[in-house]
């Protein structure tokens, strides 16, 4: 009996290995093989000697970054922008999914869903162009609205106080619907019997959301939250760069835009690698910590 079980386990495992093999192979080939390039952050880039042949500089480039004139400003700005994006931006798609899930009339629900997911497809260049037009205090529709409700003449793009809110809210506007799809899918797996019995128990809709829908989303929420904490220093580049102007620069200069402006994207490979690696390590520490906390507290974790 025992040996039969064991044999079964082996057979079972060989099938599992076979199923994961394609994924393992591509990840190994295309992600792990090029990883020797990481050493560029510790070496001078020397074209004639190849990627791994340059002079060993140790932590020189890391030091250069940490000691650079704007380092503390950059870290602060980068950190605040992504923290704000996580705190406000993360719950938004969850709430949207719960709201959409409550709509009973199918046609209405379909229209809503399709509409909210569309902004995802707008390219950054166009999005920022639209922000410029729509948020203009003189001529934009948001400018008109703000005047109408008595907020007065505020140039949302021109102040260090309003830059982060504008950035975060436009980000939510653009990606909230798209990100809610995953939660909607998770909600579709809720057993309808649960709803039926809750109704018989006389639960209000608010209670069904709280005691049935929300718990069903919990595993997905935890995993996605851990992952988003792993992006604490990745603000993205293009949108911030395009939204920058001299008036919001004190809060909008982030690591990615600074690196771009130094022109090291095209030339100083070693310095760029070092800054990249520095970012990565901090991100990874955040992810690892969150994952550990989550494994202890909720039993849901990445690894």
């Amino acid at each position, binding site marked *: 009996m025992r040996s039969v079980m064991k044999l079964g386990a082996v057979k079972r495992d060989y*099938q599992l290995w076979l199923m994961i093999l394609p994924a393992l192979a591509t990840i190994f080939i295309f992600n792990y093989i*090029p990883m020797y390039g990481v050493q560029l952050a510790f070496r001078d880039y020397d074209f004639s000697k190849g990627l791994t042949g340059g002079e060993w500089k140790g932590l020189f480039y890391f030091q250069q970054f940490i000691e650079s004139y704007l380092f503390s400003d950059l870290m602060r700005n980068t950190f605040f922008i992504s923290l704000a994006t996580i705190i406000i931006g993360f719950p938004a798609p969850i709430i949207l999914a719960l709201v959409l899930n409550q709509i009973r009339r199918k046609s209405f629900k379909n229209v809503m869903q399709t*509409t909210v997911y569309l902004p995802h*497809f707008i390219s950054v260049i166009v999005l920022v162009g639209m922000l410029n037009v729509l948020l203009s205090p003189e*001529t934009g529709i948001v400018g008109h609205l703000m005047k109408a409700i008595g907020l007065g003449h505020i140039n949302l793009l021109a102040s260090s106080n309003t830059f982060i809110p504008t950035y975060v809210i436009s980000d939510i506007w653009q990606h909230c619907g798209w990100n809610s799809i995953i939660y909607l899918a998770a909600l579709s797996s809720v057993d309808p019997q649960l709803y039926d019995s809750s109704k018989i128990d006389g639960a209000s809709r608010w209670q069904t959301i709280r005691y049935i829908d929300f718990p069903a989303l919990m595993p997905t929420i935890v995993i996605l939250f851990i992952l988003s904490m792993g992006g604490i220093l990745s603000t993205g580049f293009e949108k911030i760069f395009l939204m920058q102007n001299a008036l919001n620069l004190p809060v909008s200069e982030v690591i990615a835009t600074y690196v771009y402006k130094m022109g090291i994207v095209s030339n100083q490979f070693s310095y760029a690698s070092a800054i990249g690696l520095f970012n990565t390590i901090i991100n990874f520490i955040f992810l690892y910590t969150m994952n550990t906390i989550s494994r202890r507290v909720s039993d849901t974790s990445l690894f």
Partner: protein
Amino acid sequence: MEKISPRLGGGEILFRMVLFTICALIFLMVAYPLYFIIIASVSDSTLVSTGKVLLFPKGTSLFGYGEIFKDERIWTGYRNTLFYTSVGTLVNLLFTLPAAYVLSRKEFKARKYIMFAFVFTMFFNGGLIPTYLLMKDLHLTNTPWVFIVPFSVNVFYLIIARTFFESTLPPELYEAAAIDGCSHFVYFVKVALPLSKALISVIGLYYLVGHWNDFFTALIYIRDNELKPLQIILRDILLSNQVFASGAGTGGDSGGYAQKYADQIKYGVIIVSTLPILVLYPFLQKYFEKGVMIGSIKG
């Protein structure tokens, strides 16, 4: 869900009113800018940027669309993108879903280590140049395969799929099936996949849109015009509009004429690139309906 109609108590009415108000607000906030893109794509750009175009198009012309479709590369681009997207997504799903299933099995001992190895790659990579050299050595540069084979597993989506399998497939289900002599292959294909239509549509959609919007791969790895996907061509057209900003100086007035319609192109590009994908969503939407999964178990 529809079977039992809720009692219309006071709470329910209030709930409906709040729900309706929220939805209406969300709808307006999202729909207006989308509508704005449409009217801006046919209006005089000067009027658009000075805020004269708010509710209706003004100075209407189809110049922008004319410019976009004048570019013959658009059609090759459409053809290429369709190919890369469909085959790419198929390969993505074939590689990702089985792996996600495996990683969701608690009895798979190596899962913790493999998972870590996968997540690790979300953060650490060798950089563009070693990757480019690898692609070159594998003879993938400047071929259609570069869109399909490398990075066919997106770790983020893999994690989502794994979480979904973990939380929706009751462990008892496999145990019961195993007793009947059901192998993992059979269980995966016959039970797990049919129960995960919502997941497959979501992951499929994410992958598909990823391929559809991808211009970076082409930017770095493709030199042949015949192989370029739609997005890189649209990006060229779009950036041409931006170039006017620095067009003066050494260049002189490079865009006086095109300037007037430059923004039309900008907004038109969005519509041209999004329409095909727009029609897709409603087809997938039905899989998000409640109860699809459990219903199919019982059926």
